[in-house]
C-alpha cells in the first residue's frame, strides 16, 4: 500500500479517536447555520441561493481551520512521535502530504455535513445548483489553503497555542490582502499599480468570491493549488530545519 494512504488513514482515524472531531464538526455546523440565518438574512433576502452561507466561510475558517491545523506537526514534535514517524521508511514529502490530506478530508467531511442547507434552499426555491457546487468546491479549496498555511506554521513550534495564533494572523493577512484595509496601505505608498494588483491577487477572498459566483476560472483553481503546494513544500523545509530542537 502507498505510504501516503497509510499515513492518511491513521491520521484521519486519530481525529475521530478523540473528541476533537466531534467538537469541531458540531461547532462548525452551528456557527455556519447561525451566520447564515441571523447575520446573512437567509430568509429576508428572498433569494434562492447560498450566498449568505458561503459568504461567511472565510471568517469561519479563519478561526476553525487553524484549530485543526495547529496539531498537525506541533503535537508530533511535542510528544516526540515525529522521531518515530520520520524514521519509518517514508519520505518527508509523503509524511507532510499524508497528514495534510487527512486534515483536508476531515474538513471536507464537516463541509459535506452542511448538506441540509442545500436541501433547504432547493425545497424553498429553485437555486442554481451549479453555482452552489462551485461554491462548495471553492470553499474546500480555500480550506485546503488555510490548512497548508497552518501545516507550515505548526511545524515551526511544539506549542499548539503559538501555532494557532501564528496561523490565524497569517491567514488573516492572506484573506485581507484583497481588501481596502491592506490595499489602501500599499496605495498610500505610491506603489505601481502592478504591485498593488499582485498583492490583491494574493487574496484568498478574491479567488474564493470568483469561484463562488459560479465562475470556474482555471486561474483561481491554479491559485489555490499553487498556494497549497507552496505552503506544503515550505512545511518540509521547516521540519527539516527545526526537527533537531
Amino acid at each position, binding site marked *: 500500500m502507498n505510504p501516503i494512504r497509510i*499515513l492518511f488513514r491513521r491520521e484521519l482515524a486519530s481525529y475521530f479517536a478523540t473528541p476533537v472531531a466531534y467538537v469541531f464538526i458540531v461547532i462548525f455546523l452551528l456557527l455556519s447555520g447561525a451566520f447564515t440565518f441571523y447575520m446573512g438574512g437567509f430568509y429576508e433576502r428572498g433569494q434562492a441561493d447560498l450566498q449568505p452561507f458561503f459568504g461567511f466561510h472565510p471568517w469561519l475558517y479563519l478561526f476553525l481551520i487553524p484549530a485543526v491545523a495547529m496539531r498537525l506537526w506541533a503535537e508530533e514534535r511535542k510528544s516526540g512521535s515525529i522521531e518515530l514517524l520520520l524514521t519509518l521508511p517514508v519520505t518527508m514529502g509523503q509524511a507532510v502530504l499524508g497528514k495534510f490530506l487527512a486534515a483536508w478530508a476531515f474538513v471536507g467531511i464537516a463541509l459535506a455535513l452542511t448538506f441540509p442547507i442545500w436541501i433547504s434552499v432547493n425545497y424553498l426555491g429553485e437555486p442554481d445548483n451549479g453555482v452552489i457546487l462551485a461554491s462548495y468546491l471553492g470553499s474546500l479549496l480555500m480550506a485546503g489553503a488555510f490548512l497548508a498555511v497552518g501545516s507550515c506554521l505548526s511545524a515551526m513550534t511544539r506549542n499548539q497555542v503559538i501555532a494557532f495564533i501564528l496561523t490565524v494572523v497569517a491567514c488573516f493577512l492572506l484573506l485581507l490582502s484583497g481588501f481596502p484595509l491592506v490595499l489602501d496601505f500599499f496605495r498610500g505608498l505610491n506603489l505601481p499599480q502592478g504591485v498593488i494588483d499582485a498583492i490583491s491577487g494574493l487574496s484568498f477572498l478574491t479567488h474564493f468570491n470568483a469561484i463562488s459566483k459560479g465562475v470556474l476560472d482555471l486561474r483561481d483553481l491554479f491559485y489555490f493549488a499553487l498556494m497549497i503546494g507552496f505552503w506544503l513544500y515550505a512545511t518540509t523545509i521547516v521540519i527539516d530545519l527545526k526537527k533537531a*530542537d
Partner: protein
Amino acid sequence: MIETRDLSKRYGDLVAVDGIRFSVQPGQVLGFLGPNGAGKSTTMKMLAGFLTPSAGSASICGYDVVESALAAKRLVGYLPEGAPSYGEMSVRGFLEFVADVRGLSGDARRRQLDDAIGRLSLQGVMHQSIDTLSKGFKRRVGLAQAILHDPKVLILDEPTDGLDPNQKHEVRALIQAMAKDKTIIVSTHILEEVHAVCNRAIIIARGKVLADDTPSALEARSRFHQAVSLTAENAAAVRDVLVRIGDVAAVEIDAQDQRLTAFPRKGKAIFASVVEALRANAIQVREIALEQGRLDEVFRQITTSAQEAA
C-alpha cells in the same frame, strides 16, 4: 552492520557529536555509554535517519543514511528515547499501522505481529489505548514496534529506562535472544546492563569516543581489577598483615562497613598470597571475594578526566 566515519553533529556553536568513528558487526551488541548530554542520543538519531549529520557519514548495511535514507530505514528498528508513540491509538492499531508502513502484508504481517506481541507479552493490552498504559507497557509497545519487521539492525535508546527490575530482566533477555544475527546498539547509563547484554562497550563524552572495548576489558582498567576484598573482626590488624605482602600495592578500609580491600600492583595476582597470609596468621574472615573491577569507577574515571582535559 553499522559503520560511521567521522560522524559529527553541530547545533550552532555547540558540537554535540564530534567525529565519531566505529563499526559494529552482526552478532555484536554494542553498549553506548556516556553521561547525559554526551551525544549518545544524537548519534543514534543520525543512525536512525532522523537527524542529518553536519559532517562525516554513517551507513547501515552499506546504505548511507543520507544518500539512501529509505533503504537504510527499512533495515533499522529504532526505539527513540522515551518510546514515543501515538497515544490515542490502541496498541493493536498502532502496531498494525507500523506493520503497514513497513510494508508487511498477508501471512508475514500476521506472523510478525504475533511474534512481536508474544515476545513483549502485550496480549493483555491489545485493545487499550496507549495513553492509558503504564510506563513499562509503553516502553514495551515501543520495543514491539522496533522489532516488528525483524530488522537487521536494532537501535535502542535507553530501552530499559523506567522499567521495574523484572521488566528490565525480560527486555535484556529479549535483546540477548535477538543478538545472534542482528547488529544491535543499546544506549544506557545503567552500567550493570552493559554486563548483562553487551559484548562491546563504547564510552562517549562531549561527543567523542573515549573508550571502545569489551565490558571485561574495560573493567580490567579499574584499580579494583584483581583486588581482594574481605571482612574480618579486627580490620586494622588484618590490614597490617596484608600490606606486608609483596605484590599488594595498598590496602583500604571502607569507613562504613569496615570492609578491607587489598589492591595489587599492576598486572599482579594477589588472591593466593592473600589467602596464604591470612591462614599463616590464623585470621578468621567472614567472607572474601576476588573483585572483577568496577565499571562505574572506570566510567567515572574516563568521563571526568575528559572533562578536566576540556
